[in-house]
């Protein structure tokens, strides 16, 4: 790999730009492809570049055959995100497990005392009101949102924004009874049955979790299962 290609790849990744590194495995020639174009020495047909851009969109590395040899498309996507509403005791292990699993984690809690009560080393903490924080964070298809406060004033506005976003996972901590009441309030805000069915509540896989770390594990297990399409195979 040319030093300049390596430096440019690092630059694009640092800027959070999804980028694919294409390598002709026979010649070693390379090309960097983003949604807006390509740069590098590897010559490819326009439709091959388009195929690489499709791989970029689907967030999946792949390879294809060309007359000049096999080309490997290595997709470097920005990390998926995990937004945790509520700096409560479960948030600390959840944030740490999320970071370990490769997520960019943001904790949202406007209550300063709560945010200060936990150790969130190296984790982004937003002190904005949840609806404002969520509007800024703009959850996308690679974002998971988990509410933990048990407080409708904080959880509901966050869930309201999450339900209007393409977030791949939405989870809300609370008992079945709490969750039923929550669904009633969100329905009153105009969310239909299909939208409400997107919320995992009570949150997490049923593994009998008791401690904060175990509950965090059950939540990350469920987030992973949804993201990777698990649960459908034995």
């Amino acid at each position, binding site marked *: *790999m*040319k*030093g300049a290609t*390596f430096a440019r*790849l*690092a630059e694009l*990744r640092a800027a959070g730009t999804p980028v694919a590194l294409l*390598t002709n*495995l026979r010649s*070693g020639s390379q090309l960097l492809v983003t949604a807006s174009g390509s740069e590098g020495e590897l010559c490819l047909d326009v439709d091959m570049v388009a195929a690489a851009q499709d791989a970029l969109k689907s*967030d999946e*590395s*792949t*390879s294809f055959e060309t007359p000049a040899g096999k080309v*490997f498309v*290595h*997709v*470097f*996507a920005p*990390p*998926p995100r995990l937004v945790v509403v509520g700096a409560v005791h479960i948030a600390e292990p959840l944030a740490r497990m999320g970071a*370990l699993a*490769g997520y960019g984690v943001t904790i949202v809690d406007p209550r300063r005392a709560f945010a200060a009560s936990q150790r969130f080393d190296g984790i982004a903490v937003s002190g904005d009101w949840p609806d404002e924080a969520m509007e800024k964070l703009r959850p996308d298809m690679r974002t998971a949102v988990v509410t933990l406060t048990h407080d409708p004033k904080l959880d509901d506005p966050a869930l309201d924004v999450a339900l209007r976003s393409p977030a791949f996972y939405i989870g809300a901590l609370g008992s079945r009874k709490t969750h039923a009441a929550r669904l009633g309030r969100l329905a009153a805000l105009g969310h239909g049955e299909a939208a409400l069915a997107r919320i995992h509540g009570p949150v997490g896989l049923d593994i009998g979790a008791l401690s904060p770390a175990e509950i965090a594990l059950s939540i990350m297990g469920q987030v992973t299962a949804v993201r990777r399409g698990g649960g459908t195979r034995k």
Partner: protein
Amino acid sequence: MDATEVRDILATAAEWRAGGRGVALATVVTTWGSSPRPVGSQLVVDETGRFAGSVSGGCIEGAVIREAVDAIATGRPRLLDFGVTNEQAWEVGLACGGKVQVYVERIDA
């Protein structure tokens, strides 16, 4: 960070380069059957054979590191095939029965 990695391999590669070390990357480009690491998994290697990351569960790293050290010396990239047969099961191969193809390249100065 690549979602397949616990730590950022390219960032490690950049650090090592900045420290004046010769560096190569090994990348899983194809897998067949049950393979321990997904396509895109990477290993970074320096000229002394020090490495970070993984391209398998530890089955083929030794051979990949040897090739990477050679790639750093010669500048020649290479495509390595690893599979497993009963005869080679105790040598370099994947105990799980999968096959992987690993591309090894030097990062030029």
